[in-house]
Protein backbone atom coordinates (compact mmCIF):
# COMPACT_ATOMS: atom_id res chain seq x y z
CA UNK A 1 0.00 0.00 0.00
CA UNK A 2 1.99 2.95 -1.24
CA UNK A 3 0.66 6.47 -0.85
CA UNK A 4 0.12 8.40 -4.04
CA UNK A 5 2.41 11.17 -2.89
CA UNK A 6 5.47 10.55 -0.87
CA UNK A 7 4.68 12.63 2.16
CA UNK A 8 7.26 11.02 4.42
CA UNK A 9 9.48 13.51 6.09
CA UNK A 10 12.33 12.50 8.33
CA UNK A 11 11.79 15.46 10.62
CA UNK A 12 8.09 14.80 11.07
CA UNK A 13 8.74 11.10 11.52
CA UNK A 14 11.34 11.51 14.25
CA UNK A 15 9.38 14.31 15.83
CA UNK A 16 6.24 12.21 15.96
CA UNK A 17 8.07 9.28 17.53
CA UNK A 18 9.45 11.57 20.23
CA UNK A 19 6.25 13.51 20.74
CA UNK A 20 3.87 10.58 20.92
CA UNK A 21 4.72 9.40 24.48
CA UNK A 22 4.98 12.99 25.66
CA UNK A 23 1.57 13.86 24.28
CA UNK A 24 -0.02 10.77 25.78
CA UNK A 25 1.50 11.62 29.16
CA UNK A 26 0.29 15.19 28.82
CA UNK A 27 -3.20 13.96 27.97
CA UNK A 28 -3.23 11.81 31.13
CA UNK A 29 -2.06 14.82 33.12
CA UNK A 30 -4.92 16.89 31.70
CA UNK A 31 -7.37 14.10 32.46
CA UNK A 32 -6.35 13.74 36.10
CA UNK A 33 -6.15 17.41 37.03
CA UNK A 34 -9.52 18.04 35.43
CA UNK A 35 -11.69 17.80 38.50
CA UNK A 36 -10.66 21.02 40.20
CA UNK A 37 -8.59 22.78 37.57
CA UNK A 38 -8.79 23.37 33.82
CA UNK A 39 -8.49 20.08 31.99
CA UNK A 40 -10.64 16.97 32.02
CA UNK A 41 -11.55 13.93 30.02
CA UNK A 42 -12.68 15.72 26.90
CA UNK A 43 -9.57 17.82 26.42
CA UNK A 44 -7.29 14.98 27.48
CA UNK A 45 -8.98 12.70 24.99
CA UNK A 46 -8.54 15.25 22.19
CA UNK A 47 -4.81 15.54 22.94
CA UNK A 48 -4.37 11.76 22.97
CA UNK A 49 -6.31 11.43 19.73
CA UNK A 50 -4.18 14.18 18.19
CA UNK A 51 -1.06 12.26 19.20
CA UNK A 52 -2.22 9.17 17.36
CA UNK A 53 -3.39 11.24 14.40
CA UNK A 54 0.11 12.72 14.27
CA UNK A 55 1.47 9.18 14.00
CA UNK A 56 -0.91 8.64 11.12
CA UNK A 57 0.33 11.72 9.27
CA UNK A 58 3.99 10.92 9.94
CA UNK A 59 3.79 7.29 8.91
CA UNK A 60 0.58 5.77 7.68
CA UNK A 61 -2.82 4.44 8.56
CA UNK A 62 -1.46 1.00 9.43
CA UNK A 63 1.11 2.33 11.90
CA UNK A 64 -1.56 4.32 13.71
CA UNK A 65 -3.91 1.33 13.86
CA UNK A 66 -1.05 -0.79 15.24
CA UNK A 67 -0.34 1.51 18.16
CA UNK A 68 -3.99 1.63 19.08
CA UNK A 69 -4.21 -2.20 18.99
CA UNK A 70 -8.02 -2.22 19.21
CA UNK A 71 -10.71 -0.84 16.92
CA UNK A 72 -11.42 2.76 17.96
CA UNK A 73 -15.12 1.93 18.28
CA UNK A 74 -14.22 -0.56 20.99
CA UNK A 75 -12.58 2.28 22.88
CA UNK A 76 -15.85 4.18 22.61
CA UNK A 77 -17.56 1.11 24.02
CA UNK A 78 -15.24 0.87 27.01
CA UNK A 79 -15.61 4.59 27.58
CA UNK A 80 -19.40 4.36 27.49
CA UNK A 81 -19.39 1.39 29.88
CA UNK A 82 -17.28 3.38 32.35
CA UNK A 83 -19.31 6.57 31.98
CA UNK A 84 -22.67 4.81 32.27
CA UNK A 85 -21.31 2.50 34.96
CA UNK A 86 -20.29 5.55 37.03
CA UNK A 87 -24.00 6.10 37.68
CA UNK A 88 -24.44 2.76 39.39
CA UNK A 89 -22.39 2.90 42.66
CA UNK A 90 -24.80 5.52 44.01
CA UNK A 91 -27.66 3.08 43.61
CA UNK A 92 -25.80 0.43 45.62
CA UNK A 93 -25.48 2.73 48.61
CA UNK A 94 -29.10 3.77 48.26
CA UNK A 95 -28.65 7.30 46.98
CA UNK A 96 -30.14 8.91 43.90
CA UNK A 97 -28.97 7.60 40.57
CA UNK A 98 -25.69 9.25 39.42
CA UNK A 99 -24.92 10.87 42.80
CA UNK A 100 -21.16 11.34 43.09
CA UNK A 101 -19.42 8.89 45.41
CA UNK A 102 -16.05 9.61 46.96
CA UNK A 103 -13.58 7.16 48.41
CA UNK A 104 -10.33 8.11 50.14
CA UNK A 105 -7.43 5.71 49.90
CA UNK A 106 -4.56 6.02 52.38
CA UNK A 107 -1.32 5.09 50.67
CA UNK A 108 1.94 4.66 52.60
CA UNK A 109 4.14 7.11 50.71
CA UNK A 110 1.92 9.44 48.75
CA UNK A 111 -0.48 10.28 51.51
CA UNK A 112 -4.20 10.05 50.83
CA UNK A 113 -5.64 9.57 47.35
CA UNK A 114 -9.16 10.66 46.55
CA UNK A 115 -11.08 8.49 44.12
CA UNK A 116 -14.59 9.18 42.90
CA UNK A 117 -17.27 8.27 40.42
CA UNK A 118 -16.78 11.59 38.56
CA UNK A 119 -13.22 10.39 37.91
CA UNK A 120 -14.51 7.13 36.46
CA UNK A 121 -16.94 9.13 34.36
CA UNK A 122 -14.13 11.36 33.15
CA UNK A 123 -11.96 8.39 32.21
CA UNK A 124 -14.95 7.11 30.27
CA UNK A 125 -15.22 10.45 28.47
CA UNK A 126 -11.48 10.36 27.78
CA UNK A 127 -11.66 6.96 26.10
CA UNK A 128 -14.88 7.86 24.32
CA UNK A 129 -13.39 11.00 22.81
CA UNK A 130 -10.26 9.19 21.65
CA UNK A 131 -12.41 6.51 20.07
CA UNK A 132 -14.80 8.90 18.36
CA UNK A 133 -12.15 11.20 16.94
CA UNK A 134 -10.03 8.32 15.70
CA UNK A 135 -13.03 6.60 14.14
CA UNK A 136 -13.62 9.71 12.06
CA UNK A 137 -9.92 10.17 11.22
CA UNK A 138 -9.42 6.52 10.33
CA UNK A 139 -12.55 6.44 8.21
CA UNK A 140 -11.29 9.36 6.17
CA UNK A 141 -7.75 7.94 5.98
CA UNK A 142 -9.08 4.56 4.87
CA UNK A 143 -11.11 6.18 2.12
CA UNK A 144 -7.96 8.02 0.95
CA UNK A 145 -6.06 4.73 0.75
CA UNK A 146 -8.50 2.62 -1.19
Amino acid sequence: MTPRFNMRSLILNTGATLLLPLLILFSLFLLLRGHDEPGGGFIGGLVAAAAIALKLFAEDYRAARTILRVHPLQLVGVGLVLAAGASLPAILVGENFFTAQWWTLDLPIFGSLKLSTPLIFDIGVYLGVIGTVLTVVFTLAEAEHS
Partner: protein
Amino acid sequence: MTSLLAILIGCLYAAAIYMMLRRSVVKLVIGLILLSNAANLLIFTAAGLERGVPPLIEEGQQVIAGTAADPLAQALILTAIVIGFGVLAFAVVLIHRACEVVQTDDMNEMKGTD
Protein backbone atom coordinates in the same frame (compact mmCIF):
# COMPACT_ATOMS: atom_id res chain seq x y z
CA MET B 1 -21.63 45.42 22.90
CA THR B 2 -24.80 43.34 22.97
CA SER B 3 -26.22 45.02 19.90
CA LEU B 4 -22.93 44.58 18.06
CA LEU B 5 -22.97 40.88 18.86
CA ALA B 6 -26.62 40.67 17.86
CA ILE B 7 -25.78 42.11 14.44
CA LEU B 8 -22.88 39.69 14.10
CA ILE B 9 -25.14 36.77 14.98
CA GLY B 10 -27.66 37.94 12.41
CA CYS B 11 -24.94 38.11 9.77
CA LEU B 12 -23.77 34.61 10.70
CA TYR B 13 -27.27 33.18 10.37
CA ALA B 14 -27.74 34.91 7.03
CA ALA B 15 -24.38 33.68 5.74
CA ALA B 16 -25.15 30.16 6.95
CA ILE B 17 -28.52 30.05 5.20
CA TYR B 18 -26.97 31.53 2.05
CA MET B 19 -24.27 28.87 2.01
CA MET B 20 -26.82 26.13 2.60
CA LEU B 21 -28.81 27.28 -0.40
CA ARG B 22 -25.87 26.87 -2.77
CA ARG B 23 -25.65 23.81 -4.96
CA SER B 24 -22.34 22.50 -3.71
CA VAL B 25 -22.47 20.06 -0.80
CA VAL B 26 -19.13 21.37 0.48
CA LYS B 27 -20.68 24.80 0.87
CA LEU B 28 -23.59 23.11 2.56
CA VAL B 29 -21.26 21.83 5.27
CA ILE B 30 -19.70 25.27 5.68
CA GLY B 31 -23.22 26.61 6.10
CA LEU B 32 -23.94 24.07 8.81
CA ILE B 33 -20.74 24.98 10.65
CA LEU B 34 -21.63 28.68 10.54
CA LEU B 35 -25.13 27.89 11.73
CA SER B 36 -23.99 26.02 14.82
CA ASN B 37 -21.52 28.78 15.64
CA ALA B 38 -24.22 31.39 15.27
CA ALA B 39 -26.49 29.48 17.64
CA ASN B 40 -23.72 29.19 20.22
CA LEU B 41 -22.94 32.87 20.03
CA LEU B 42 -26.63 33.61 20.44
CA ILE B 43 -26.83 31.63 23.68
CA PHE B 44 -23.77 33.48 24.89
CA THR B 45 -25.34 36.84 24.15
CA ALA B 46 -28.86 36.02 25.27
CA ALA B 47 -27.65 34.93 28.71
CA GLY B 48 -26.29 38.42 29.32
CA LEU B 49 -22.78 39.76 28.83
CA GLU B 50 -20.53 40.37 31.81
CA ARG B 51 -16.96 41.43 31.22
CA GLY B 52 -14.11 40.24 33.39
CA VAL B 53 -16.18 38.84 36.27
CA PRO B 54 -15.73 35.08 36.39
CA PRO B 55 -18.30 33.30 38.56
CA LEU B 56 -15.88 32.46 41.36
CA ILE B 57 -16.81 32.53 45.02
CA GLU B 58 -14.23 34.26 47.20
CA GLU B 59 -12.41 32.28 49.86
CA GLY B 60 -14.55 32.03 52.96
CA GLN B 61 -17.72 33.27 51.24
CA GLN B 62 -20.90 31.34 50.50
CA VAL B 63 -22.27 33.31 47.57
CA ILE B 64 -20.87 35.39 44.76
CA ALA B 65 -20.48 39.04 45.66
CA GLY B 66 -22.05 41.31 43.05
CA THR B 67 -22.76 40.25 39.48
CA ALA B 68 -20.81 37.63 37.58
CA ALA B 69 -20.84 35.96 34.21
CA ASP B 70 -23.40 33.17 33.92
CA PRO B 71 -21.53 29.84 34.01
CA LEU B 72 -24.56 27.83 32.95
CA ALA B 73 -24.76 29.50 29.54
CA GLN B 74 -21.10 28.71 29.00
CA ALA B 75 -21.68 25.11 29.99
CA LEU B 76 -24.49 24.96 27.44
CA ILE B 77 -22.27 26.37 24.74
CA LEU B 78 -19.50 23.93 25.60
CA THR B 79 -21.92 21.03 25.33
CA ALA B 80 -23.35 22.37 22.10
CA ILE B 81 -19.86 22.80 20.65
CA VAL B 82 -18.95 19.22 21.50
CA ILE B 83 -22.17 17.91 20.01
CA GLY B 84 -21.76 20.12 16.97
CA PHE B 85 -18.21 18.86 16.56
CA GLY B 86 -19.36 15.24 16.60
CA VAL B 87 -22.25 15.77 14.24
CA LEU B 88 -20.22 17.85 11.79
CA ALA B 89 -17.43 15.27 11.78
CA PHE B 90 -20.07 12.82 10.73
CA ALA B 91 -21.42 15.19 8.09
CA VAL B 92 -17.94 15.63 6.62
CA VAL B 93 -17.41 11.88 6.38
CA LEU B 94 -20.87 11.49 4.87
CA ILE B 95 -20.28 14.13 2.24
CA HIS B 96 -16.88 12.72 1.40
CA ARG B 97 -18.48 9.32 0.83
CA ALA B 98 -21.39 10.82 -1.05
CA CYS B 99 -19.09 12.72 -3.40
CA GLU B 100 -17.20 9.49 -4.04
CA VAL B 101 -20.32 7.49 -4.78
CA VAL B 102 -22.16 10.11 -6.82
CA GLN B 103 -18.98 11.50 -8.43
CA THR B 104 -20.06 15.10 -8.05
CA ASP B 105 -20.63 17.67 -5.33
CA ASP B 106 -23.61 19.23 -7.08
CA MET B 107 -26.84 18.90 -5.12
CA ASN B 108 -28.80 19.01 -8.35
CA GLU B 109 -27.32 15.67 -9.34
CA MET B 110 -28.52 14.06 -6.13
CA LYS B 111 -32.20 13.81 -6.85
CA GLY B 112 -32.45 10.06 -7.28
CA THR B 113 -34.62 9.55 -4.21
CA ASP B 114 -37.05 12.45 -4.56
